[in-house]
């Protein structure tokens, strides 16, 4: 009898623990429980995080868009340019010259790195890290260190698979005003129209009110210091320029119009690395005049050079 009670209690305990484990901590908003992340529960490994937003299946039907996207930096958003891995390298510098050096960060090595530490970068470079446990953050940091210090190729591949893919723009980050428009629901691709979507895992298509608005891109393209962080960082500040310089001076085009449509690059969203974008960047006019200026009784032979540069982008060039 006694043995049974113990067993009963221990079973109950396991039950409570499991429940606690699978119930994600939700905010007050209605419908958050229907998001991809809430449904899956926090990812406990890098592999689980990659699977949660796996977009490889989209290539089946959207091959052209997929191939375009694959060439963009969004497809390597914590690795950076293919040849250099500049972004991953800077994540490592952030650990060495930042997190480890700051007295009050609580980080002595990669194993101490939590989501809140990486958030100072992943807020924009990998927003879905919010849907993972602290173990995933330290796993990512470890992989980056192994890639940088030992040339670990498998780590490099995995780091590149953590990116801003179809499901980040067309689901997770497709809605900014969630109390107004609802939380993005699993099984739905958000685009420019409502209807059926011919995909088994994503059977519905819904219009996102911001898909063609600059704020979609503005979520990650920065306003200035990220003051909501315990230790604010600053990287991209381009959306700030878009709002307070470009729009303030009368600019009316959206990010999508310049970067996806006029550029004809579609989902291969690029900047100075693309000749189309370099061409569109600015008007450059130089006038030179040779003349002899009379300074009292003497002639001063001079060349006047006037360089005029008119930035035609929707923000400052370059970005911080």
């Amino acid at each position, binding site marked *: 009898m006694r043995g049974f009670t113990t067993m009963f209690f221990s079973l109950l305990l396991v039950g409570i623990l499991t429940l606690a484990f699978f119930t994600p901590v939700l905010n007050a908003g209605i419908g958050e429980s229907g998001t991809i992340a809430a449904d899956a529960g926090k990812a406990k490994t890098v592999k689980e995080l990659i699977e949660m937003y796996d977009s490889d299946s989209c290539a089946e039907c959207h091959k052209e868009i997929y191939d375009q996207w694959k060439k963009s930096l969004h497809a390597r958003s914590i690795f950076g340019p293919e*040849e*250099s891995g*500049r972004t991953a390298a*800077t994540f490592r*510098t*952030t650990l060495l*010259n*930042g*997190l480890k050096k700051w007295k009050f960060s609580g980080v002595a090595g990669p194993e101490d790195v939590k989501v809140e530490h990486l958030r*100072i*970068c992943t807020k924009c470079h990998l927003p879905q890290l919010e849907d993972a446990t602290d173990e995933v953050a330290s796993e990512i940091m470890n992989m980056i260190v192994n890639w940088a210090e030992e040339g670990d190729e498998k780590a490099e591949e995995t780091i590149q698979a953590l990116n801003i893919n179809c499901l980040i723009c067309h689901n997770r980050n497709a809605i900014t005003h969630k109390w107004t428009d609802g939380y993005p629901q699993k099984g739905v691709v958000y685009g420019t129209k409502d209807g059926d979507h011919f995909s088994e895992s994503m059977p519905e298509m819904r219009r996102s009110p911001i898909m063609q608005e600059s704020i979609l891109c503005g979520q990650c393209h920065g306003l*200035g*210091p990220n003051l909501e962080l315990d230790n*604010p*960082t*600053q*990287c991209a*500040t381009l959306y700030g*320029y878009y709002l307070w*310089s*470009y729009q303030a*001076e*009368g*600019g009316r085009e959206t990010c999508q119009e310049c970067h996806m449509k006029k550029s004809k690059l579609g989902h291969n969203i690029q900047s*100075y*690395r693309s000749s189309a974008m*370099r061409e569109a*960047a*600015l008007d*450059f006019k*130089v006038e*030179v*005049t*040779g*003349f*002899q200026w009379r300074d009292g009784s*003497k*002639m*001063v*032979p*001079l*060349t*006047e*050079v*006037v*360089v*005029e*540069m*008119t*930035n*035609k*982008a*929707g*923000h*400052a*060039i*370059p*970005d*911080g």
Partner: protein
Amino acid sequence: MTATLDNGKKIFKDSKVFMPVPGRMGRGDKMGRGPYEKSGIIRDSALPPMRTITEKYDIPFPFEDVKERGKRVRKILAREMTINVELWYMPYGSRNDDDNNTLFRKFTKKVTIE
């Protein structure tokens, strides 16, 4: 930009940097480098959108003042120079970074005086 004489001699050289200069940790007068330490802007010379930025230079042709029969006269030593203006994009802010630095615009013209 440079000005060069026909004999290859460079008589003028100047460069200007256009970029937002981020502050370091949101305090003081020092520039920050990595995104982990950047906060704020302490100076901004980036090319602003929708506006025209003008840079002007006056470059003298080489001359020499000599005395001829008791009078000071100005002798112009060269009457031609070639102006080169290049606009480079340096994504990581280093002049010695051939892999990443990109030439945006280029201008060359020979200037002559009488």
